[in-house]
C-alpha cells in the first residue's frame, strides 16, 4: 500500500450508454463456473457413459427387428426406445426420464444459498443491477448447461447409432429428435427451477441438495407407485362391470396418473419418438374403441399430427416449469438481503 500506487490510479471514463443487461453478465459468469466445475465433468461422464450401454443393447435389438421391418420410417428413433427383451437395462427414454432430473437439481440446489453462505450476495446486490438479474441469470445459465449436456448426450447416441446400424436418420427422424430434445430440456428445466426454489428456501446448500434428491427419488421411483395406488382406489378399473364402465374408469385413472410430471414427459416422448403411436388416451366410448381396432397396422402419423397429440402435455410441462421458477423468483425478491 504505497502512496505512489494510489497516485497512479487512473479513473476510467464512465461510459453510460454501453451497459449490458445485468442478467447476461451474471449468466456468463455462472455458465463459466458450471463448465469448469467438477460436477459438470462428472455428470457429463456419467450420463454419457451410461447411455452407451442401453444404446449398445438397443442396436442389437434393432438389428433383429430391422430384418422384419417393411417400412423403415422411425427405425432410427428405435435407438431411444428399444432394449433387449431379457435385459434389465432400461431403454434410453426411460433412462433420460429418470436420470436427467438429477442434472437439473445438481446445477441449481446451491444457486442462492451458497451466495448467502459465502457472503457474496450483499456484495453482488450492491452492484448497479436489479435484484432479479441475479436469479434470472442463474436460471439462464443452468438452462444453457442443461441444453449443452443433453445435446452432447443426444449427439453421442445418434452418432453411435449411425455407426453401429448404418441407418441414417431421415428428415422426419431429425425433426422428431429435435422436438424430443426440446421437451427434454423443458423437463430438466422443471427440475432446475425446483432446485432454484430449494436454494432460495433453504439456507444450507446440503439441506437443499438432500431435499432435491429426496423429491427426485419420490417422483422417479415411488411416484408412479403412489399415483397408481391412488388411481386404483379412485378408479377401480378391475371392478368394471361393462366395457363402457371399464373405458371410463381407465380414462380417469390415466388422468390421475398424468398429475405426475414424469408421466407427462414419458407419454410426450413416446409419441414424439414413435410415429406409429396414434393415441395417448384410451378411447372414451365404445365407438372410439372400435374405430381404433379398425386402424390399419403400420399407419404412421406425420410430425405435426404427433405434436398435436401431445400439445396439452407440452403446455402442462412448460407451465409447471414456469410456475416453479416464478415461485423461486417471488420468494427471492421478497427475502431480506441479510440472513
Amino acid at each position, binding site marked *: *500500500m*504505497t*502512496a*505512489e*500506487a*494510489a*497516485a*497512479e*490510479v*487512473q*479513473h*476510467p*471514463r*464512465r*461510459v*453510460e450508454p*454501453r*451497459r*449490458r443487461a*445485468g442478467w447476461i*453478465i*451474471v449468466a456468463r*459468469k455462472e455458465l463459466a*463456473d458450471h463448465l469448469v*466445475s467438477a460436477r459438470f465433468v462428472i455428470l457429463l461422464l456419467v450420463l454419457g457413459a451410461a447411455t452407451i450401454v442401453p444404446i449398445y443393447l438397443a442396436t442389437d435389438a434393432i438389428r433383429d427387428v430391422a430384418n422384419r421391418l417393411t417400412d423403415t420410417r422411425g427405425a432410427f428413433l428405435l435407438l431411444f426406445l428399444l432394449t433387449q427383451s431379457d435385459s434389465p437395462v432400461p431403454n434410453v427414454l426411460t433412462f433420460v426420464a429418470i436420470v436427467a432430473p438429477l442434472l437439473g437439481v445438481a446445477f441449481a440446489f446451491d444457486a442462492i444459498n451458497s451466495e448467502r453462505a*459465502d*457472503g*457474496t450476495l*450483499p*456484495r*453482488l*446486490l*450492491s*452492484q*448497479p*443491477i*436489479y435484484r432479479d438479474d441475479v436469479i434470472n441469470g442463474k436460471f439462464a445459465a443452468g438452462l444453457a448447461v442443461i441444453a449443452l449436456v443433453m445435446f452432447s448426450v443426444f449427439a453421442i447416441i445418434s452418432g453411435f447409432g449411425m455407426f453401429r446400424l448404418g441407418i441414417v436418420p431421415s428428415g422426419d427422424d431429425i425433426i422428431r429428435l429435435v422436438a424430443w430434445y426440446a421437451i427434454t430440456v423443458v423437463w430438466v428445466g422443471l427440475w432446475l427451477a425446483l432446485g432454484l426454489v430449494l436454494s432460495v428456501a433453504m439456507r444450507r446448500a446440503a439441506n437443499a441438495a438432500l431435499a432435491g434428491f429426496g423429491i427426485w427419488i419420490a417422483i422417479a421411483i415411488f411416484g408412479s407407485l403412489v399415483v397408481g395406488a391412488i388411481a386404483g382406489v379412485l378408479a377401480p378399473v378391475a371392478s368394471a362391470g361393462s366395457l363402457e364402465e371399464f373405458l371410463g374408469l381407465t380414462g380417469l385413472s390415466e388422468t390421475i396418473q398424468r398429475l405426475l410430471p414424469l408421466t407427462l414427459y414419458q407419454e410426450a416422448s413416446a409419441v414424439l419418438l414413435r410415429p406409429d403411436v396414434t393415441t395417448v388416451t384410451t378411447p372414451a366410448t365404445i365407438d372410439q374403441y372400435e374405430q381404433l381396432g379398425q386402424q390399419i397396422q403400420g399407419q404412421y402419423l406425420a410430425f405435426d399430427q404427433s405434436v398435436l397429440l401431445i400439445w396439452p402435455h407440452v403446455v402442462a410441462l412448460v407451465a409447471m416449469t414456469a410456475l416453479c421458477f416464478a415461485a423461486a423468483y417471488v420468494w427471492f425478491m421478497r427475502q*431480506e*438481503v*441479510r440472513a
Partner: protein
Amino acid sequence: MTTATRPSRRRRGGTSEAGNTASPIRTRALTKHYGARIAVDALDLEVRRGEIFGLLGQNGAGKTTTILMLLGLTEPSGGSSRVVGLDPARHPLEVKRKVGYLPDAVGFYGNMTGRENLRYTARLNGLGGADAEAHIDAVLAQVGLTDRADGRTDTYSRGMIQRLGIADALIKDPDVLILDEPTASIDPIGVIEILELLRRLVRERGMTVLLSSHLLDQVQTVCDRVGIFAHGRLIGVGTVAELAATFGDGAAHLEATFQPDAPDPGPALRAIDGITDAALDAGTGTWRIAVRPSGGSAAAREAIVETAARHGLRLTGLHELEPSLEDIYRAAVAGMSRGFAVDETIDERADEHADEHADEGADDRIDESVDARSEETSA
C-alpha cells in the same frame, strides 16, 4: 510526487462552500420495523462531504439495517433518505452506481482469483476492456494486494479478504464509500493498515466515508465525526471531543508520572486550584488527575509543573488523556437507558457518577470471569 500533478476529481476543501445542502448522505425520520421489533427508530443522520463518519453501536443496534436502507437493499418502513442526492428506495440503481459498499463479513467466490472477482464486479458496473483492467490493477495496488491478485480467494486470509472487499467497493470509483464493520475479525496491524488506507482515500480522492463499527477505540482514531447508535436511535453525534463534552463527566483527565523515590505528591497536587482529584494507579505508577472544568486543563498542567519544581518532585511525564470513546459510549447508553433526552445538558448528571459505577461493574464482571477461569485451570 505525482500526487500533486494528478488531476483530482473532487477536493475535500473544494466543495465545502456547498455546505450541508450537498451532504451526500442524509436521512429524515428513517424507520424500519421487522414485525413488532423496531430496528431503526426515526433516524436523522447527516454525513458531510469528504468526512469519515463513524456509526458506532453494539451488535444489533441497527447499523447494518440503516446501511441497507441507504443502499436501497431494504425497504424502509417510514421516513426518507437521500444518498448522493437520490432516494435509494426509488432509484436504487443510480445510488448503487455511485456508492461503494463493503458488507459485513464480506465474501468472494473462492474458485476465482482476486483479480477475477474484481473483474466480475467491474462488468456488473458496466466497465470492461483495457480501461477496466488498468483500474483493477490500480485498486489492487492501492490495497496492497498486487502480489496475491492471481491467487484464488479461498487461500486468502481474513485481512486480505477485507482489503479485497475495499478494492471491490472502489472498482466503481464511488463518491461515497459505506463500510460495514471494516475492522472486525482483523488483527491489530491489519486494522491500522485499513484505517490508514481509508484516511488516504478521503485525502486523495475526496471520498465521503460512512463506516460502522462496534470496536470503538479503533474507530476513534480515524473518524472525523461519530454517531452513537443504540436500540435503533442515534443518541449522540459529533467529534469525539464534542461527545466527551456532552456525555463525559465534565472533567479533563491528566496523567502524570514522578520518579519512584520522590515523596508522595498527592497532597501538593490536590492543593492546586481546579484539580478535583488525584489518585495513584498502583499498577502503572502513574497519577490520574481530574481537572474541573475541563477547560482549565492547560492551566492545571502549568501549575503541576510549577508545584513539582517547588516541592522537589521529579516530574518525568505529564500528558492529557484523550477522552475514550468507550467511556463516552457507555455513558451515553447508560444515560439513554435511564430515560434522559439526548440534548439534555449533562450538568444534572455529572454528580451521579453513573458511568463510573458502570465502569466498576464491568471491571468486576471481568475479574469474576478471570477468577472463574483460573479456578477451572487449577481444579
